[in-house]
Structure formats: structure tokens, C-alpha cells
């Protein structure tokens, strides 16, 4: 075999991309595929954002103003599906594609052609999902959780919804396999597991979560499909099935899914805070164990989403305590990030600002999660705006801020140019102010009893809803700045980035030139780990 290695080199040692559309459609380069993931994610972020603004416009004042209730329900459903599967997940997969091979010193992802397929399934899935908006009966309106029997009342959109979820699952599974194989099989020779950067670690754990739960979601929606079209009784009590069973299967997927959306964010923040504190990450190994514990616990807490749908008392107690246990490893992580900054020589560039906002605001979302974990309290909060406030705090200033932090942090490496720091900071402050104006009042609305997913509300909720809507419009407009900053950076408008980009950051990605050449680490780096800040 080694005799034939020489002549194969000539064939794949090409240094630039091919010209034209083939570069993207036939892509096998991890940087190209990562870029496509990130662009798709940005587009979906704005599509889902417009839907959110339709929701908030309707909720600006009590009564029905702009949309009918059916369309309102379609918007809440599609907003969630698009943001979860179209914006947050592809953003992190895109970051993994770009950064994991660079961080572990690999020439590319382990399975480059499959990498292409896992991306190019996504446009198919979203085309199918978006087409439902124009169908008889409209888009799915049952909420992204797709609970039967309500979801079975969906019109022509129903099979399109099911199959687009299948496609998203296939894409995620192939992406997860690729990331696992890349991390396990392609690390630089001297990079042992515990020397891996934290972003790589959290993605490895995330990939295992994806592998374990996406097939379960596929099974759940398959049962919905056969119940609807082939006469099965999985969720039909008359046939011995149980609609609550769908909720169990769905949330067995759904709860690990929320960690799929936050663990890579933990990884990003664990990269950024050390760089701008000029100290190594405090408690690196304990971070690994904490992330692993969170991943394990995520499999045994799913029924806390269903405390009001009926289950035995022992079940409620188990799921309550197991859920509260997650606060322990999460506390370890928050402590370690804080301790990393302790007596560090800190500076506050845009990525660091987003990481700090993540730290504070994600923690608020974590605390409201603890409140929701308490069974007797949850029975009051269930399906109220308090829940909406909770998960938007962990997802928007949590996951989305981490994505933005990562983009500002690594974009100079991708493009070879810095973004405009002043504009980055402006984007940060507007986003942070408006995200709180939007979501903080929702806590009060929920505690006062406003239900979620309803287009109209009692006049007593009017003031906080107006404030939240103003915040949402402000937040949405602020994101145009993000798009502007990214486009300017891609157009190489900023100053030229150095190879290290920041002040002595750790990690292999900073040893390659800026912008990163089309092919990197074609031979593995000899020394992969810098362990101290000089």
C-alpha cells in the first residue's frame, strides 16, 4: 500500500479551490462546508427572526390585530423549528467543521464526502418545511413539539413536516459521526484526550448526544406518520396506545437536544474567556467531567417537561431531583469560567463581551430552569410565559450569543481581516440591552399567569408585552449590524489580522496563517499543545 502512496499525493495535493459553483456543490473541504453551514445558519436566523417579529407584533397589544390565530400558531411552530434546526444547530456544526480540524491538527474532516452530504441535505429539508407555508391548511401549527393528537390535525403540511424532520435527523447523525471520527482518529500525534481544547471536547460529547437521540426523534415522528396514514395506534388510547407516550419519546430526544444546543456554546466560551483573561482555563479536566456529567444527566430528566401531563408521584420526584442535580456540574462550569478571569489581565474585545454576557445571562436562564424543576411550582409555571422567558434566556443570550462570540473570535482567522471593533461593540451592547428588554418582562408575564402560544391576552398583561415587543424589534434590527459586520469582514474591509489574531491565544488554530489556507495540516503538526501563557 505504501508503495502507491506517492502517486496518490500528486492527485490530491491541489492547493486552491476549484472555480465556480462546483466548489460549493461538490465541496469536500471542511472550511468550505463550514462556511456553507454558517451562511445557511445566518439566513435561517433572519427567517426565524422575521417569524418572531410577526409573533411579537401581534402581541404588542391585546386583541387580534395583524394575523389570525391559526397563522399565529404556524409562526410559533415554524419559528421554533427553524431556529432550533436551522439557526443554532447548523451554526455549531459549521463552527465544528471550520475549527475542529484546525484545533486538533487534522488535514480535514475524517469523512469529507459524507460531510458534504450532511450539509446538502439541510437545504432540501428546509425547502420542504418552508413549502408548507403555502399549502392547504397552512404550515404546521402544533408547536415544534408536535404533540398528538393536535399535530394529526395538520393539513397537507403533515407528511412534509415529518419527512423534513427525518432529513434533519439524517443530516445531524452523519454530521455527528463525522465529528466523532475526526476527533477520535485524526488528532495530532501528541494530543491526548485530556489535552484537547475544550471546544473539541464539548463537540465530542455533543456528537454522542446527537447520535443517541436523533434516531429516537426519527422513531417518534415515524409513529406519528403511521398513526396518521397507516392505522397504527401508538398514540390512540382506544387502541391501547397513549398520547402521553409521544411526549415521553419526544422529550427523550428533546432534553438532550437542548444540551446539544448549549454544550458547544460552553466550549466556545471556554476558548474565549482564557484568551482575553490571558490565563489558561481554570480546571480544564473538571470542565470535561462536568460536560460529561451534564450529558449523562440529560438522558434521565426528560419528564420534567411533562409534570402536568400526568405521571406517578415517584416519577415526578425522580425527575425533579435528577433535574436539580444538573445544577451541580453547571455550577462547576460557571465557577471555572469565573475563576479563569480571577486576577487575569483582562481585555474586553467583542468576543469577550459576548462571552461575559453569556456567563451572566445563561446563568439567569439556568436559575429559572431550577425554579421550573420544582414540581409544585412547575404546575403553576407550566406553559406560561415564564417558560418562554426561561428557554429564550438559555438559547438567545446563551447559544446565540456564544455563536456570535465565536464568529467574532475566529472570523479574523477565516478571512484574514479584523472586524470593526467599534461596530462589534455597538452590536454587542444593542443586542445585550434589547435581549433583556425582550425576555426579562416575560418572567413577570408568566408568573402573572399569561399562557404561551396564544395570540390574545388579558389587558393586565399589556404593558410588559409592549415592552417585550419593542425589545424584540430592537433586537431584530440590531442583528442587521451583525450581518453588516460579517459582510464587511468577509469583504476584507478591516485591518489585516496577524497569525495569532489575539494576544497570545492558545491552540493550534492560531499557528496557521490568517486567513487559514485552503489546506492546513496536510502533515500533522509536530508539537500540538502549548500549555502556558508566556
Amino acid at each position, binding site marked *: 500500500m505504501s508503495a502507491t502512496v506517492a502517486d496518490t499525493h500528486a492527485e490530491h495535493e491541489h492547493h486552491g479551490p476549484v472555480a465556480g459553483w462546483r466548489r460549493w456543490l*461538490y465541496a469536500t473541504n471542511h472550511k468550505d462546508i463550514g462556511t456553507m453551514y454558517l451562511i445557511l445558519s445566518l439566513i435561517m436566523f433572519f427567517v426565524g427572526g422575521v417569524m418572531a417579529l410577526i409573533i411579537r407584533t401581534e402581541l404588542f397589544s391585546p386583541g387580534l390585530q395583524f394575523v389570525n390565530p391559526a397563522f399565529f400558531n404556524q409562526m410559533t411552530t415554524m419559528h421554533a423549528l427553524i431556529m432550533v434546526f436551522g439557526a443554532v444547530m447548523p451554526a455549531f456544526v459549521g463552527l465544528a467543521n471550520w475549527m475542529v480540524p484546525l484545533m486538533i491538527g487534522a488535514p480535514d474532516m475524517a469523512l469529507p464526502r459524507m460531510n458534504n452530504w450532511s450539509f446538502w441535505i439541510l437545504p432540501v429539508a428546509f425547502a420542504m418545511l418552508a413549502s408548507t407555508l403555502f399549502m392547504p391548511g397552512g404550515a404546521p401549527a402544533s408547536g415544534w413539539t408536535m404533540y398528538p393528537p393536535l399535530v394529526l390535525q395538520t393539513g397537507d403540511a403533515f407528511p412534509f413536516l415529518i*419527512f423534513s424532520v427525518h432529513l434533519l435527523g439524517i443530516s445531524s447523525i452523519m454530521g455527528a459521526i463525522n465529528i466523532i471520527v475526526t476527533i477520535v482518529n485524526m488528532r495530532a500525534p501528541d494530543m491526548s484526550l485530556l489535552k484537547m481544547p475544550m471546544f473539541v471536547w464539548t463537540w465530542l460529547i455533543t456528537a454522542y448526544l446527537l447520535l443517541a437521540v436523533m434516531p429516537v426523534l426519527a422513531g417518534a415522528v415515524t409513529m406519528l406518520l403511521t398513526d396518521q396514514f397507516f*392505522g397504527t*395506534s*401508538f398514540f390512540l388510547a382506544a387502541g391501547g*396506545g397513549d398520547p402521553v*407516550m409521544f411526549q415521553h419519546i419526544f422529550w*427523550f430526544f428533546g432534553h438532550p437536544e437542548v444540551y446539544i444546543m448549549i454544550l458547544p456554546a460552553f466550549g466556545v466560551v471556554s476558548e474565549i474567556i482564557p484568551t482575553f483573561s490571558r490565563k489558561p482555563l481554570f480546571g480544564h479536566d473538571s470542565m470535561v467531567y462536568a460536560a460529561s456529567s451534564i450529558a449523562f444527566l440529560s438522558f434521565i430528566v426528560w419528564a420534567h417537561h411533562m409534570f402536568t401531563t400526568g405521571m*406517578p408521584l415517584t416519577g415526578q420526584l425522580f425527575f425533579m431531583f435528577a433535574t436539580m442535580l444538573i445544577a451541580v456540574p453547571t455550577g462547576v462550569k460557571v465557577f471555572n469560567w469565573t475563576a479563569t478571569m480571577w486576577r487575569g489581565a483582562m481585555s474586553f474585545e467583542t468576543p469577550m463581551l459576548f462571552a461575559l454576557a453569556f456567563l451572566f445571562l445563561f446563568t439567569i436562564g439556568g436559575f429559572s430552569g431550577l425554579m421550573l424543576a420544582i414540581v409544585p411550582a412547575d404546575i403553576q409555571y407550566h406553559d406560561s410565559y415564564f417558560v418562554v422567558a426561561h428557554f429564550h434566556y438559555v438559547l438567545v443570550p446563551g447559544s446565540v450569543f456564544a455563536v456570535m462570540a465565536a464568529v467574532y473570535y475566529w472570523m479574523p482567522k477565516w478571512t484574514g481581516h479584523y472586524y470593526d471593533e467599534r461596530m462589534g461593540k455597538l452590536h454587542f451592547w444593542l443586542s445585550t440591552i434589547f435581549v433583556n428588554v425582550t425576555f426579562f418582562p416575560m418572567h413577570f408575564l408568566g408568573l402573572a399567569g399569561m399562557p404561551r402560544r396564544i395570540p390574545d391576552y388579558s389587558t393586565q398583561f399589556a404593558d410588559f408585552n409592549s415592552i417585550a415587543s419593542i425589545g424584540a424589534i430592537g433586537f431584530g434590527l440590531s442583528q442587521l449590524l451583525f450581518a453588516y459586520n460579517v459582510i464587511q469582514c468577509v469583504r476584507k474591509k478591516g485591518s489585516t489580522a496577524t497569525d495569532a489574531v489575539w494576544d497570545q491565544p492558545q491552540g493550534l488554530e492560531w499557528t496557521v496563517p490568517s486567513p487559514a489556507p485552503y489546506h492546513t495540516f496536510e502533515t500533522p503538526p509536530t508539537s500540538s499543545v502549548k500549555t502556558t501563557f508566556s
Partner: protein
Amino acid sequence: MSHAEEKYYVPHGSHWPIVGSAGLLFLMVGVSVWLNGGDTGFWVMLAGFAIIIFMLVGWFGEVIGESESGRFNTQVGMSFRMGMFWFIFSEVMFFSAFFGALFYARNMAIPWLGGESNNFFTNLMLWDGFESTWPTNGPGNIGGDFEPMGPFGLPLINTVLLLSSSVTLTIAHHALLKGHRSLVKVFLGATFVLGFIFVFLQAEEYIEAYQHMNLTLGSGIYGSTFFMLTGFHGMHVTIGAIMLTIIWFRVLKGHFTPDKHFAFEAVAWYCHFVDVVWVALYVFVYWM
């Protein structure tokens, strides 16, 4: 990593994934339209299926060509193996969803419909007189009275067939490792023949169920779990047998060496996984 001196094979751009995506688009849209009552959907679905078959043949053909021309080093082989292993893990989780549905229905949903735990009034007000039993098609007697599928007869024969195929496959694998290629041909051939016989007998079993036992996919939760679990398993046996056949032809063409035979190993793992699922099916669906 021990082969740092050999370069990792990073392929050129490939058109197969985008062909696959086009196939999936046609397949999924076609099925959706068809299920919504549009007859054209059926033909669109067939077109999508054809494109996917075309893609699979082309993509695998290209990879086999690369493998036979010696472009894959040990590290690439390891990537393929890990990829297959974790793919099978995801398949295990897919089956877990349906096994989970079976266990939940049997141990929770049906006893609760029968009034157990704190569900006395559920039973009294909604389903008065329904007693928790298994097998059942629920308090609504959905699909009408039926006869459950017992563990003996065809299912038992199928168990023997599938377990034998596992043995013949292992013999073939060991023969390949020792370089006894004629033995490989015989036992690999026997393996896929056993697989196809299994699928044939399962079809017979389904015909028996539909025609003589009134046991259908619509027979309440028992029919749902029975046909979905055995159906998905049967689909996997079919795919496994097709893959074994392809591997057999590759053996005839002289592919695979004692130290380089990823495809053989991958198919063997897949078939063993399918066999293990069958054992679980036999115990939990047919027997208990």
C-alpha cells in the same frame, strides 16, 4: 496516528452527495404528495428512489475503486470502521424508540387504561369494563378481534435461520482472515441465502397474519408494535442480505485481503447487529 508518515486521503470534490440530496428531495416530496392523495407523488417517489439507487451504486463504486487502487491507508480504514460502528449505534437507538413504545404500552399505558395506579376513574368513566391484558388492541377493540403471533412455527424457524446465518458469516470471516477464499465463497453465499429465506418466510408470516389471523398494522397497539418492530427489522435484514450479496460478488472478483477488508467487516457488523435485534424481538415481541 501511528501512520503519520502516510498522508490522509482527502478526496476531490464529489458530485455523489448532491445527487443523493436530489434523490432524497424527490423521494420525500413524492411520498408526501402521495400520502396526501396525489397520484403523481407515487411516480416522483419512484424517481427519487431510482436516483438514490444510482447514487449508491456510483458512490460505493467510486470508493471501491479507490480502495482497490490502494489509496486508503490504515488511518482511513480506521475512520471507516469508526463511522460504521457509530452508524450502527444510531440504528440501535432507532430500534430503542420502538422497543420503548412497546414497553411503555405494556407496562404503563394499558395497565393505566385498565384502572391501575390512580386511574380508577379513567377506567370507570372512559373505558368501563376494560381489563389490562396483553396482547390487546385496546379498549376500543381497534381493528377487531385478532389472533396474536405465537413464538413457535415460522418465527422459531426464522430464529434458527438468522442465528445460523450469524454462524456461517463468522466462519466466512475467519476463513477470510486465514486466506481460505473458497471457504469464504461458500459460507458467505450461505449467509445471504439464509437472509433471503428469512425475508421470504417473514413475508409468509405477514400473509398468514393478514389473511387468517386478522392481525394487521391496524390491530391496536399490539398490531402497531408487532408490525413496526418486525417490519423495520425485516427491512434491515433485506438491506443486510443485499449488502452480503454485493460483498460476495466482490469476493468472487478477488477483492479483500486478510488484513484489508473494511467492507466485509462493516457488513458483518451490520448483520450481527440485525441478528441481535432479532433476538430481542423474539423474546419481547413473540415470546413474552
